[in-house]
């Protein structure tokens, strides 16, 4: 039952096969049973969610402690005095504005390129059959299998010879063409029934138009997943920017915050957690906004008729 299309959606409904309502056949008793089950499920979910948030909570609380208070024996969960000024200091004493701008530019460009070229290449891998395709795909996967640490220095020397070090561009080319997006989108394109493309071909659409007008609209959830994960990974990356971005005005948020913390004489760990908390909040918000694409994705059935 496609709940989204019904008016007056009941407050708690489910499309999942596990926490499902029992449909119109359910009688009164099982309705009450279903409600009880839903309430229990909600309580469990809330308890579970709180448990998941403990390290995050600890991080936030630690950011408000004095520097020598963060670690102590026995453990203290709440600070003696609340050091809210850490957040003020962080905003006023650093080039936060520039770093935030750099990080947003970097994450957006990388995400855009990864989604665009990844889904474009994925169409070639998923829907066009040509000799050597599977081998090429394995080569893509193979590069994921090599730890970055083992080739980051040769790669750095190569990019240094191209005079790309100490630019945001270096990080864009480094992160935008990964195999991850290609793999993810290929798998999702393969779930889309071939008849849809066939019908489009009979209507005279080129393969490029099929990609743009059939495949992309049908894979909104997958594109959202790819975009979210790429954005988060680029935002949180530390070692990449550290190796490539040397001048202060090119730094990302992660880099700037760690540096600020390392250079602060008096505050050490508590300031570190202030920085970490600040850097997590924007991506938490972006995630919260972006996750709705997973329920509003278009059911393939809607387009079949």
């Amino acid at each position: 039952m496609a709940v989204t299309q019904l008016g007056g959606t009941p407050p708690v409904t489910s499309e999942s096969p596990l926490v499902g309502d029992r449909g119109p056949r359910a009688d009164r008793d099982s309705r009450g049973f279903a409600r009880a089950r839903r309430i229990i499920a909600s309580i469990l979910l809330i308890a579970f969610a709180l448990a998941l948030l403990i390290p995050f909570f600890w991080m936030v609380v630690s950011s408000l402690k004095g520097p020598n208070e963060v670690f102590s024996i026995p453990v203290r969960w709440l600070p003696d005095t609340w050091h809210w000024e850490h957040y003020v200091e962080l905003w006023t004493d650093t080039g936060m504005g520039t770093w935030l701008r750099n990080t947003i530019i970097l994450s957006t460009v990388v995400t855009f390129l990864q989604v665009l070229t990844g889904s474009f290449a994925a169409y070639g891998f998923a829907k066009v059959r040509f000799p050597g395709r599977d081998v090429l795909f394995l080569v893509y996967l193979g590069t994921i299998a090599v730890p970055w640490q083992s080739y980051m220095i040769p790669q750095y020397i190569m990019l240094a010879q191209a005079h790309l070090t100490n630019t945001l561009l270096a990080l864009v080319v480094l992160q935008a063409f990964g195999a991850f997006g290609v793999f993810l989108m290929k798998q999702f394109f393969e779930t889309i029934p071939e008849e849809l493309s066939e019908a489009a071909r009979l209507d005279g659409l080129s393969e490029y138009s099929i990609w743009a007008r059939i495949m992309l609209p049908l894979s909104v959830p997958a594109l959202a997943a790819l975009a979210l994960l790429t954005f988060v990974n680029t935002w949180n990356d530390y070692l990449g920017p550290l190796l490539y971005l040397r001048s202060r005005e090119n730094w990302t948020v992660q880099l700037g915050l760690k540096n600020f913390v390392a250079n602060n004489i008096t505050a050490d760990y508590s300031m570190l957690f202030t920085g970490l908390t600040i850097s997590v909040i924007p991506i938490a918000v972006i995630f919260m906004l972006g996750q709705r694409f997973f329920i509003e994705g278009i059911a393939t059935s809607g387009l079949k008729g």
Partner: protein
Amino acid sequence: MTSAIADPARTPTRRRRSKLALRNTLLGWSFILPNFLGFGIITLVPVVTLFYIALTNFNIFGKGNFIGVGNFTKLVADPLFQRSLLNTFYYSVMHVPLTIVVSLGLALLLNTKIRGVAFFRTAAFFPYITSIVAIALVWNLLFSPDAGPINEVLRFLGIANPPGWLTSQDWAMPAVVIISTWRDMGFYMILFLAGLQAVPRELYEAARVDGANVVQRFFNVTLPGLRPTMFLVTVLLTIASFKVFDLIIVLSPGGNAAPNAATVVLSQFIYQKGFVEAKFGYASSGAVVLFFLCITATIIQFLINKRRSV
């Protein structure tokens, strides 16, 4: 399902077929090329170089000579390498199935219209975005052998001698698996959530009409519909498990390896040899072994997946 352009109604002549193959090759490459330009230069070239370096005794500055397979014969006899190989398998065998079950369960649970689903999904994703330093510190506290909450619960449940977890030789790896599963589940939940959107809704309807219960619907509708996602997750997760690194480093007690090198894994071995001991050629040979392990696992999964989808 994957072959698109060939029209099965006609039986093409040999020439037409080769023309079609050429056309498809050009077409396929035209799609792949924009990505491949970046990927090939930035990633593929250094990775291929690595295969050469694995046959040398280069230090980190590229000074040294070609020594053939010397590194690999040395690897086979290196006790630390053997230990790290075993540990990597041990970790992967526990971590891959556990993470699949947990993240799929979460995705099913959160693929609903319950109130506050946005909050729950974000909460489930939080472990993945919380700083790894905070994660290590908090889990170290939770797993603390004497005063940690986990062992207090175990004692309360009547277990007189709960394990020493991260400081114990036998329990360090299971503890790492628990923490890494907790951390990774949000990431794979996202992939499963996206995959669930692609399962046609009318299939559930049809199954329901046929009287299938929740469990039957899961096995007959959800799982088959998720097959491409399942392949994606299994391959990514297996490779990620073989490569596990940062979590192991930050969780080691006192910054040292766990007793008897109980949690030393391949990536750590590669890092230790390459960056700490500056034996770059030797480290690269370890990376090449890791590459072939991942590729073998991927090909096996690829073949299984292909046979199932026929």
